[in-house]
């Protein structure tokens, strides 16, 4: 208490860690700083973050980074070159295309898929869950029954069936994956909503005459965000794997797009003699989805130290 | 009376993010076959004192003492195996809330039999017989029925009796009761206490009764240790309690209502930092 009365200027760290924030901004920044400190203490989580920053970087500058064209190969001299060949660091595929260049350009597809699925599925789940939790009664019962029905489905098989009906292609793959991945978000959002719904501050906002929509969007949904972000991050890995699986079965991105799963499928024929054609894209998928898993784990531990068990 | 338990300069430390916290800071006492009460607020280190004697200090914490001896056995240098053999057989402990301290997926009977068969070579049938006797000894009216019940199927008072049966079935000489009645209804508290009282007297056990309730302890024990912030601030015979010298003990005593007395203003427990030094 005596510290607060001292006139000595606070360091930035003290300002952030103050248990008596003077403004909303300070409180928010302070919380973010604490979260960041917990997060950055976890070396694996930081590694995950670096992997994903790397992915974004590669995707953004693919044109500059890729040494060759991702779709036009050199059939005459580069066909099935092994890794380490001059100019072809990771080797070349059966069309004489540089595998590294294809992987670099493929990162754009991977990133596009996860981002699109996230921005379709997460808001849907969030709104369904928050509305169900806040409204209660029969609205809750119906919405949650629908959610449970989707949860009880085999996700990959359902996505397969959707793509089969919609026709192969990366857009349809995104739609199919999004349709099958919103239910867990709805469950989380509902659970979070139920815990805040009856709290005093929500009652206070209601007394001040806020409309239900305002309460849900301004006060309930922000409370669901942190657990939702964690869950979405952890799900990203699964989304990448599903998208790659669809690509592998020929239902995702169509040739000659350099989608990693489809690249594995096309390399499958040469697995015995030219192992690198199928191996390299698999390593890329593994690294990126590992990055999402590490990041998600770290975020969960940082946002909710109780859950971490560390 | 030879000492059953000697504790000298017992310390329990917990490492935390902000540094080492000492929960118990140099506690010393000796115990014969008598009833010793340890009283203090939550966080005063009374429970950790009991657990350190049992050898149940949490693994990330560290317990040390100049001397910690039970019936001539040096507990500090004793190998873990010996301490395990002592636990349940010669030193036992009763925990606070039977709702959490009984294994929810194991029947009460099996949990009692388990203690017995851990420490004595007895046949299944004999173990069952002795468990039933023990249930009868804690005044459970229908031991055979309770034997097969699961913890969630019995009331709190019944659960705590089962807990006592489980801990006393192997015939320990020292019993540490850690807030044994705090989780129970007031009416049930007295029943459980009188059962405990009778068993301790019949079997001539030493008892360490850990509680936050000074009145309960003073009516139940021969001697009382008052703990504050990990230290013993006063040691006093229960009968002398009214003459307690330490202001903290007096404060605890003043918290007790006296029928007919004026309760305004309500006394607030005074805590001075220098007592913790």
């Amino acid at each position, binding site marked *: 208490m005596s510290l607060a009365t001292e006139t000595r200027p606070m360091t930035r760290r003290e300002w952030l860690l103050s248990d008596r924030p003077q403004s909303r901004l300070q409180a928010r920044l302070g919380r973010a700083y604490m979260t960041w400190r917990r997060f950055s203490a976890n070396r694996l989580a930081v590694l995950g973050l670096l992997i994903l920053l790397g992915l974004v970087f590669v995707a953004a500058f693919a044109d500059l980074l890729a040494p060759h064209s991702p779709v036009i190969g050199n059939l005459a001299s580069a066909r099935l070159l092994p890794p380490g060949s001059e100019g072809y660091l990771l080797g070349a595929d059966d069309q004489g295309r540089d595998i590294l260049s294809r992987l670099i350009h493929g990162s754009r597809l991977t990133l596009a898929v996860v981002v699109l699925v996230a921005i379709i599925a997460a808001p849907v789940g969030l709104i369904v869950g928050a509305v169900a939790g806040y409204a209660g009664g029969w609205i809750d019962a119906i919405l949650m*029954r*629908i959610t449970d*029905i989707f949860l*009880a*489905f*085999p*996700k990959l*098989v*359902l996505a*397969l*069936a*959707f793509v*089969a*009906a*919609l026709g192969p292609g990366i857009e349809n793959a995104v739609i199919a994956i999004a349709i099958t991945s919103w239910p867990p978000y709805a469950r989380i959002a509902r659970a979070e909503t139920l815990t805040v719904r009856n709290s005093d501050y929500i009652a206070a906002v209601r007394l001040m005459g806020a409309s239900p929509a305002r309460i849900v969007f301004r006060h309930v949904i922000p409370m669901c965000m942190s657990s939702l972000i964690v869950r979405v991050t952890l799900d990203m*890995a699964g989304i990448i*794997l599903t998208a*790659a*699986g669809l690509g*592998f*079965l*020929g*239902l995702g991105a169509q040739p000659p797009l350099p989608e990693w799963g489809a690249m*594995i499928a096309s390399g*499958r024929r040469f*697995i*015995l003699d030219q*192992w690198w054609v*199928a*191996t390299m*894209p*698999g390593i890329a998928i593994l690294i990126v*989805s*590992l990055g999402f*898993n590490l990041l998600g784990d770290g975020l969960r531990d940082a946002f909710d130290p109780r859950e971490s*068990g*560390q | 009376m030879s000492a059953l338990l000697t504790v000298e300069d017992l310390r329990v430390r917990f490492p935390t993010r902000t540094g080492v916290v000492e929960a118990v800071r140099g506690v010393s006492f000796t115990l014969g076959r008598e009833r010793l009460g340890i009283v203090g607020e939550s966080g005063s280190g009374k429970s950790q004192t009991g*657990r350190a004697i*049992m050898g149940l200090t949490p693994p990330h914490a560290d317990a040390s003492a100049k001397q910690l001896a039970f019936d001539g056995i040096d507990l500090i240098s004793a190998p873990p195996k010996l301490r*395990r*053999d*002592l*636990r*349940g*057989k010669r030193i036992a*402990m009763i925990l606070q809330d039977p709702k*959490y*301290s*009984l*294994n*929810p*997926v*194991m029947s009460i009977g099996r949990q009692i039999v*388990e*203690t017995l068969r*851990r*420490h004595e070579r007895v046949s299944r049938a004999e173990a069952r017989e002795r468990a039933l006797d023990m249930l009868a000894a804690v005044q459970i009216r229908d031991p055979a029925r309770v034997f097969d019940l*699961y913890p969630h199927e019995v009331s709190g008072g019944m659960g705590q009796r089962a*807990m006592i049966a489980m*801990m006393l079935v192997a015939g320990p000489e020292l019993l540490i009761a850690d807030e044994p009645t705090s989780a129970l209804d007031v009416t049930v508290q007295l029943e459980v206490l009188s059962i405990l009282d009778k068993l301790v007297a019949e079997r001539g056990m030493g008892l360490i009764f850990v509680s936050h309730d000074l009145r309960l302890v003073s009516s139940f024990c021969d001697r009382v240790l008052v703990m504050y912030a990990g230290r013993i601030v006063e040691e006093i015979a229960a009968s002398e309690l009214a003459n307690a010298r330490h202001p903290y003990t007096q404060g605890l005593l003043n918290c007790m209502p006296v029928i007919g007395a004026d309760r305004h203003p309500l006394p607030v427990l005074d805590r001075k930092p220098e007592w913790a030094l």
Partner: protein
Amino acid sequence: MNGRRRARSRKAVAAALQFLVVVATTYLGLLAVTFFIGRVIPIDPVLAVLGDRAPAHVVERTREAMGLNLPLYQQFVIYCRQALSGDFGISVLTTNPVMTDIRRVFPATMELATVGTLIGALIGVPLGVLAAVKRGSIADQIVRVIGLVGYSVPIFWLALLALLVFYARLKWVAYPGRIDIVYEYTFSPITGFYLVDALWQRQWDVLRDVFRHIILPASLLGYFSLAYISRMTRSFMLNELQQEYIVAARAKGLSEARIIWAHALRNAAVPLVTVIALSYAGLLEGSVLTETVFSWPGLGLYITNSLQNADMNAVLGGTIIIGSVFIGINLLSDLLYRTLDPRTRAR
């Protein structure tokens, strides 16, 4: 006493009824979604069935045979009635009824998923227990990494690499498929579970051959369920080891081994059953990708083959079957949960 018992049994009946409603609506939802996929999304389901080169009168006849001239809700009622009686139509690819095909291929998938789950649970549970007990140690870190990689690796890719290493290079396992051609005609399975059949008929050389075929795909699937099971076991065990009854068990003088396995794990087993059941369901699904790599003649391969040939009846039939098994497994795990936990045990 009597009144309480009656109240309890009334409660049990209500719970059972609620359970039935849940199962029924879930199943109805499954049918609604597959109906939507098969009949509503395609612009012309007839073309989806016949292809666009069918003569006009065939198209017209099929349209009527499929009931497509009826209103949508009537179509759905008919669809449900057919699906519930096991009629998913004819597979264009094999020209058999889809149900007949599925009956033929399903045991192969079940066998693979069962062996995979066994491997996953038998290794995953001890690993998870180890990680929880030695929390923060090197062993814990290793188990964590094993789990994380399992979550992150594309299964079909790992399957390809495993084939390359263990079949092509090391020659430890048999080539893709379920059984050697040599035995294809001499071995007559009864249950469709080749391991069980070979054991039953005491055909040791067949058993050896079947084992050499199943071990690699089953281990791969096992690894995926191991990743999930070990992680969940760890977190359940950590939770149990903090409970007061563990302190009480220590106060009784029990050995650490007994505390861990007989007390903590016995309590953790209650939620673990659900986890193992879910991972079994997950493996049924994972088989879609693994079976193509291993040419395993199961439901997964059937679905992917049908997909490639735009055989929607077969795809949707397979989807409904896998969905039904999912629902069944959820139901079963719920029942198991009740019997394992005395607090929810119906009496």
